[in-house]
């Protein structure tokens, strides 16, 4: 526990159990505050939201066996999105390891593929060193989750080992800082030749706080910016050079920009399949530059012309003095035409639209709030209509696509940012996966506002079935949804329901002003609406669907 205090840990998210009892006992005398959750998955997403909102590792404490296995989804979510997290799991006593003891699970074994690193501590004297390494590994380089499995006899016995002050010795671990100056020069030379550059910003830019440096670069070059789902917030999306999100459900003008550029510069982004679509068609003739702190990302998906290994902010700062304005006036004009020609739009008639609710949320102060989301249609609409202008104000599960992430992540973010309003935008499906945390939010009177976009469907699945599977709806109808308002009230949480577009402003304003703790807004929206634009999985950017097609479509070639 003293190790946690030394790492500056203020609070941890946990759920108790037999094998973790000595640690919970030590919490009583510690300055570290415990947030008691209702399910271990919730604890991991809260720690994740806390970490995404601050950049500091989120800490989770759970017990052995099922307590630990319930964390696996949260670990995967954090690993895929490079989120610093330290998960402490109780374990049966060392002499019983591997003997099928009560609540025993091979937790390090189960979690190998979903952690950055892990430890099974078998000697109490190792605790100070292991904890120091765990926090160091979680937050440095490409951040990620680190798991520490602590057998009960190890945490029970007195640990007389001194705190570790000497430098950490990890001979197999290197953290790139600045990139090779020769390669930075090479990148600058390519930028100087470009007439149609585009900056493609990912989560790495958010993590390294590279936003201000990137804005300087964009303005100096006069280059347009696009960002990934997780790159939202690094650079203000309301800036004139910013074209919003690219990829499968990105804006049409962002995708046209990427499809027509002569140079694409990835800054902390990893050419994900949601972005590239059909790889052989993606920016075929464009020069590709790539900054990443993880050298294993270079050449994983495609082979860039210049790979800059280092921290996104430091590399962009080194690059700044070497670049000058590109001859991009025609290019920006062309993009301006696309913006006018293909704006984000949605039907104004035929019932309440999720897009309208989210658009209004953005206009009514959503831009100053931290926004978290679940996964699905509402996530894509939120990404399109809620412009993110501040770093670490957009928290969404990207790589893993974890439903049930949004609400607990908002709780974590609210703990991390006192005084800030936090909106969790959830679908009716995802919210039901982790709604038990309403109790956690209620007890702490957290200013978490949940907006449930309720279409009584797993909307994204239904959309695919409509477009690509002859509208054969299978496993997507969420018939039997509860009355979300009554459900919230059962937890003592204030709730509103909105069914008519005319009531949206009134309810959102009331929720925004509500300061007595968490609250829930259920928006009953059109059941069968689709997210557009859309690039079908595995298709090329030029095959983007901007509105609902009249003809039947082929099943997509890409994975999902």
């Amino acid at each position, binding site marked *: 526990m003293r190790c946690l205090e030394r790492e500056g840990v203020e609070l941890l998210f946990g759920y108790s159990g037999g094998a973790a009892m000595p640690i919970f006992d030590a919490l009583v005398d510690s300055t570290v505050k415990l947030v008691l959750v209702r399910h271990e998955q919730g604890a991991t997403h809260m720690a994740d939201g806390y970490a995404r909102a601050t950049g500091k590792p989120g800490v989770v404490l759970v017990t052995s066996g099922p307590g630990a296995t319930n964390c696996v989804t949260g670990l995967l979510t954090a690993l895929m999105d490079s989120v610093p997290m330290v998960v402490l799991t109780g374990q049966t006593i060392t002499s019983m390891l591997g003997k099928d003891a009560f609540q025993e699970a091979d937790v390090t074994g189960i979690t*190998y593929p979903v952690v950055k690193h*892990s430890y099974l501590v078998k000697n109490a004297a190792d605790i100070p060193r292991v904890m120091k390494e765990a926090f160091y590994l979680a937050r440095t380089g490409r951040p990620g989750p680190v798991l520490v499995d602590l057998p009960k006899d190890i945490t029970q016995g007195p640990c007389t080992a001194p705190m570790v002050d000497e430098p950490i010795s*990890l001979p*197999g671990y290197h953290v*790139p800082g600045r990139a090779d100056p020769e390669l930075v020069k090479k990148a600058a030379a390519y930028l100087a030749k470009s007439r149609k550059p585009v900056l493609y910003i990912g989560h790495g830019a958010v993590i390294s706080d590279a936003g201000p440096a990137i804005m300087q670069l964009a303005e100096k070059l006069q280059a347009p910016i696009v960002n990934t789902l997780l790159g939202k917030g690094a650079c203000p999306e309301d800036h004139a050079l910013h074209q919003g999100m690219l990829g499968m459900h990105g804006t049409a003008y962002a995708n046209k920009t990427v499809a027509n550029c002569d140079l694409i510069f990835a800054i902390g982004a990893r050419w994900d399949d949601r972005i590239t679509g059909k790889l052989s068609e993606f920016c075929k003739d464009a020069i590709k530059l790539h900054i990443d702190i993880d050298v294993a990302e270079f050449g994983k998906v495609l082979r860039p012309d210049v790979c800059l290994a280092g921290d996104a902010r430091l590399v962009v700062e080194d690059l700044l003095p070497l670049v000058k304005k590109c001859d991009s006036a025609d290019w920006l004009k062309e993009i301006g035409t696309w913006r006018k020609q293909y704006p984000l739009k949605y039907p104004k008639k035929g019932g309440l639209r999720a897009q309208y609710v989210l658009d209004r949320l953005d206009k009514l102060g959503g831009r100053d709030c931290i926004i978290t989301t679940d996964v699905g249609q509402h996530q894509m609409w939120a990404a399109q209509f809620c412009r993110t202008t501040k770093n670490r104000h957009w928290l969404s599960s990207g790589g893993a696509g974890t439903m049930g992430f949004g609400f607990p992540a908002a709780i974590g973010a609210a703990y991390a940012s006192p005084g800030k309003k936090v909106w969790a935008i959830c679908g009716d499906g995802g919210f039901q996966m982790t709604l038990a945390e309403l109790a956690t939010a209620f007890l702490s009177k957290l200013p978490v506002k949940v907006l449930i976009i309720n279409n009584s469907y797993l909307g994204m699945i239904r959309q695919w079935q409509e477009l690509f599977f002859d509208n054969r709806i299978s496993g997507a109808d969420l018939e039997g949804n509860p009355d979300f308002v009554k459900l919230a009230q059962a937890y003592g949480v204030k709730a509103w329901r909105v069914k008519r577009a005319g009531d949206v402003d009134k309810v959102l304003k009331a929720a925004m002003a509500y300061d007595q703790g968490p609250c829930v807004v259920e928006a009953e929206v059109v059941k069968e609406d689709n997210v557009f634009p859309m690039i079908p999985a595995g298709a090329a950017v030029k095959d983007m669907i901007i509105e609902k097609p009249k003809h039947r479509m082929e099943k997509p070639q890409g994975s999902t």
Partner: protein
Amino acid sequence: MPTTIQRGSQFELDPGKPVRRHPVTEEVIQPLHTISLLVRNKPGVLVRVSLVFSRRGYNIESLVVSPALSAPGASEISGDFSRMTITCSGDPDTLEQIIKQLEKLIDVVHAIDHTGQSVIESELALIKVTIALKERTEILQIAEHYRAKVVDYGSESMILRVEGETDKIDAVIALLKPFHIAELVRSGKILMVRGSLTT
């Protein structure tokens, strides 16, 4: 620590190399790559390493783990580090990604693909052959030609111990195939780079 990526050159296959066939089934085998790793001697390292291969559906042909010197340049063995020599087959792009993912593991100090380098490689095999009386001389001739040692000589079987490069051992096995090979145990390949380069 690599800060630049060499475009594929280090993983390109030697075009002059003949197609390899399995000594028994005679199926064409993908060219083999040998990767040596210096790793921290910690529980779980082997699982982490093998997961990098299995996640991509890659099969490890052989794997040898042994104690290593305690640090580059040190002369004693402290038990802190181990050597792994892994032989596997597959396409160069995936292999390049595997090496990078191995390098990324916290407990891996370095991972090097030695394809195309000048190396000393060696492997040991124990081969138990069931023998009929009239076959003895022929088997002994094969053994003598390949400097295999007869380490067990019974009335119905004998065990040969043969050491050398993988190709040589494959050849012995292929020659013994017409007789009855009852058991076969190979140590897996170990390797060291000549000269001043690091293994």
